[in-house]
């Protein structure tokens, strides 16, 4: 009876577990992106700001295996870098995709090769270009990314790319400085790798089988324990086989090495240098002093009160506010439709950036204005979790335009006080 009850409980438990698993699987979304929303807001708004991003394929567009995709853009190393993380003494331009679904053909920063890591300078801008080639079929979220030593990856705005075809058709040919032509970098040198691994595995297996095909554990253990069977445990034949094996092992290691050296007489060590790349020249900017910053929780709006001083020779207007890759556009200054064609919808606020007064600001004039950046993206991108951060400050870039169409970029750095009930 007791056993019957136990079995019944077991069955019910299994059925319940199965229901929980099925329910969890059916209501959860598959995660195909890279968890960029999980990075703390102070990290995302005060480290790198990406702008002027261009992809040669549309968001959610399709390319075939071996097609080329180019990403270009600029990034600003925010001057008020968070003190909680190390400064960018070493950083590396990378591409963030799901494994090697795309390969990097070229990587440039300010027109210089960015194959190796470089040193970053705070408060300065860098222009980059990454040339990719599609390698593996699927739907992939692809970002440019800067890896910063001891900080981790800081992803730029990503787009979805659908790759069609078969990864077995991927090709990447080239020629070494020795003049050897290879057809596919994915399989370069693998004939030797497979060949030598198989050879040594066969020799090793022979040695193992030579011993374990004889009675192995119990009799040998008792014979060793008795101390009277040494010549039975290891016979003269065993010794002879051992000598032959030793000659083979040493012979093939030495012979293989000499043959390989004659085949590849010119080799170099791994290259571990640092790329020395200067930032872009310092551009003139507009003076912006922050008075206060609030986040209105019910309205999902960041309101920053600032004093803007026009330090240029022409009247200026604020055209864009960008933080954590989300763009807030002032529709009366910038053509929103044009921007929406090149920016993924989830990274573009649909309503216009609002200013208490965005009439042209004359040269030398100062004006106190409030800037309202309002969009659900603050919540969707988890930027409002700023309130839980150890450093409750927000960084952003402001893009001003003068009457001649010149652009001026200024960093905005502000504390962020939440307003839970605006009434």
């Amino acid at each position: 009876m007791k056993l019957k009850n136990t079995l019944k409980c077991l069955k019910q438990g299994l059925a319940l577990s199965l229901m929980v698993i099925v329910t969890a699987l059916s209501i959860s979304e598959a995660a195909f992106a890279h968890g960029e929303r999980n990075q703390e807001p102070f990290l995302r708004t005060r480290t790198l700001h990406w702008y002027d991003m261009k992809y040669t394929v549309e968001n959610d567009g399709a390319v075939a295996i071996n097609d080329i995709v180019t990403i270009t853009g600029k990034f600003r190393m925010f001057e008020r870098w968070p003190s909680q993380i190390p400064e960018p003494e070493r950083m590396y331009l990378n591409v963030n995709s799901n494994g090697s679904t795309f390969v990097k053909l070229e990587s440039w920063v300010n027109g210089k090769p960015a194959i190796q890591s470089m040193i970053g300078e705070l408060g300065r801008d860098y222009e980059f270009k990454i040339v990719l080639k599609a390698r593996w079929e699927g739907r992939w979220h692809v970002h440019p990314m800067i890896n910063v030593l001891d900080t981790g990856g800081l992803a730029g705005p990503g787009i979805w790319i659908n790759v069609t075809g078969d990864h077995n058709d991927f090709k990447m040919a080239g020629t070494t400085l020795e003049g050897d032509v290879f057809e596919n970098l994915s399989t370069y040198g693998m004939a030797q790798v497979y060949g030598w691994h198989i050879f040594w595995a066969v020799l090793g297996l022979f040695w193992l089988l030579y011993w374990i095909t004889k009675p192995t554990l119990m009799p040998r253990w008792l014979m060793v324990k008795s101390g009277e069977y040494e010549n039975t445990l290891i016979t003269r034949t065993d010794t002879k086989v051992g000598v032959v094996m030793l000659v083979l092992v040493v012979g093939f290691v030495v012979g293989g090495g000499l043959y390989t050296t004659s085949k590849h007489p010119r080799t170099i060590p791994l290259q571990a240098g640092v790329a020395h790349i200067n930032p872009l020249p310092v551009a003139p900017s507009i003076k912006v002093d922050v008075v206060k910053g609030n986040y209105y929780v019910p309205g999902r709006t960041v309101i920053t009160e600032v004093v803007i001083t026009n330090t240029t020779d022409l009247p200026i207007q604020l055209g864009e506010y960008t933080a954590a890759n989300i763009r807030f556009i002032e529709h009366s200054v910038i053509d929103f439709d044009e921007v929406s064609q090149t920016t993924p919808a989830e990274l573009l606020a649909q309503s216009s950036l609002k200013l208490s007064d965005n009439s042209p600001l004359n040269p030398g004039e100062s004006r106190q204005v409030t800037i309202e950046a309002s969009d659900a993206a603050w919540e969707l991108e988890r930027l409002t979790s700023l309130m839980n951060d150890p450093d409750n400050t927000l960084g952003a870039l402001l893009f001003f335009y003068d009457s001649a169409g010149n652009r001026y970029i200024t960093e905005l750095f502000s504390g962020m006080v939440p307003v839970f009930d605006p009434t």
Partner: protein
Amino acid sequence: MALEPSQERVLQELLKPNSQMSRFSRKLDYFIIAIVMFAVMGAFHIHFMLTGGDWDFWVDWKDRQFWVTVTPIVLMIVIAAFQAIFYQHFRLPIGATLCGILLILGEWLNRYFGFYLWSHFPMSLVWPALVIPMCLWLDLVLHLSRSFILTAIIGALGFALMFPASNWAILAAFRVPIEVQGTLLSMADYIGFTFSRTATPEYLRIIERGTLRTFGGESTIIAAFFSGFVCMIMYAIWWNIGNYIAQLGWTNNRLKSFMGFKKDDNVTVAEGLGGKL
């Protein structure tokens, strides 16, 4: 050490060809060998991934200094311990080779299913290093010398020296120079650059640093000899640890009826096959 009378009876039965006990013993061999294979493969693979991981995972980490130095030292930890167990208790000079073959098998499974199929890294980026020749060398030195001391001195030194020597046959092609974007790279660097890894940027590589190259500019040889000296010490330490672990405790023999005893025979701890050495 003399055997207990009951153990002597068992041994004589085992030595009779085709006896019931020898047949049972053989079945037990296969059963235990299968378990040991999976246990060694899993344990050794995890140990090596945690201690020598990135140097073995990626072709652009296989440098002249750290890869050459670190790999034999961390391999020696498990290999010396298993060699001691197999040789001291069974007089089988196969401990190192068994570890090497199972590690390589585990690595190829991991590289193919994990790195290639799951993460789409090409095999040219993630092939594992050769370790079987150095393991064979260590077993053969022990087998022919029958000496723990000589194996620690000659075997462990050769173990480390043989690592870069045997791997050169496959590595050289990846050290051939190529020009990319006007920059000189080795083919390994080029593969590492091309097939990018999101969380393993170029600067993370612990390669070609330090002063091991200062003696005549021969980094690989200096690193291999340094590794060899450390391997000698590691071998001595881990041989003894392996030996000690093999003698820990015993368990009641529940299979005594299969070994010539009657169910009611009172088999003492000293007589039992699992008794302390």
